[in-house]
């Protein structure tokens, strides 16, 4: 498995509380991504990063923010969690430029917002 870890792996929180998910990689890959996985929707891109302090929005970015202050860490923050953000969140990394090459995924973080 690629050196990519997510934390926490499971979290239960209440509506309105802030939540931060962490993705850590040891591969020195340039590109990092946050996806959410929901039944019937597959994986949808939330935010991605193409380098330190360089991030951009994906298709479902509302309610989420990200930060990448180091190559190895990509943080996803829910400023005020809502029940619609209950999901499994996957981090992925890629080292290729241009057309995306192979993505390597973390094990996922299951978030439940009550």
């Amino acid at each position, binding site marked *: *498995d690629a050196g990519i870890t997510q934390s926490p792996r499971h979290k239960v929180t209440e509506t309105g509380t802030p939540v931060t998910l962490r993705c850590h990689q040891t591969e020195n890959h340039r*590109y990092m*991504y946050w*996806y959410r996985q929901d039944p*019937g*929707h*597959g*994986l*949808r*891109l939330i935010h*991605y990063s*193409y380098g330190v302090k360089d991030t951009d929005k*994906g*298709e479902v970015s509302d309610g989420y923010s990200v930060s990448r202050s180091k190559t190895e860490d990509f943080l996803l923050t829910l400023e005020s969690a809502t029940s619609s953000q209950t999901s499994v969140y*996957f981090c*992925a990394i*890629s080292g*290729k*430029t*241009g*057309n*995306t090459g*192979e*993505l390597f*995924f*973390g*094990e*996922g973080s299951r978030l439940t917002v009550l």
Partner: protein
Amino acid sequence: AQRVTQPEKLLSVFKGAPVELKCNYSYSGSPELFWYVQYSRQRLQLLLRHISRESIKGFTADLNKGETSFHLKKPFAQEEDSAMYYCALSTAAGNKLTFGGGTRVLVKP
């Protein structure tokens, strides 16, 4: 914007039977297409990509630009093929993958 559609949410086949997972895409340029697989309790991983034109674990997929399809096929399904399969598309515009909704394959003994 690009879009990937997997019309079947669930495919149930018997061991040894052929299996075909459908994938259709919409994108006006030249896409790069992939199939990813997620086995139970394992990470999502790349199964194959159209550009390499290879067969992985007996699976093949052909890009049909006329029909904008990238169907995944295997002539003889095995129980270990039971998994969640995602079709994905990448464009030259950025380093992002757009995934379909996924198809769960169940191979019965």
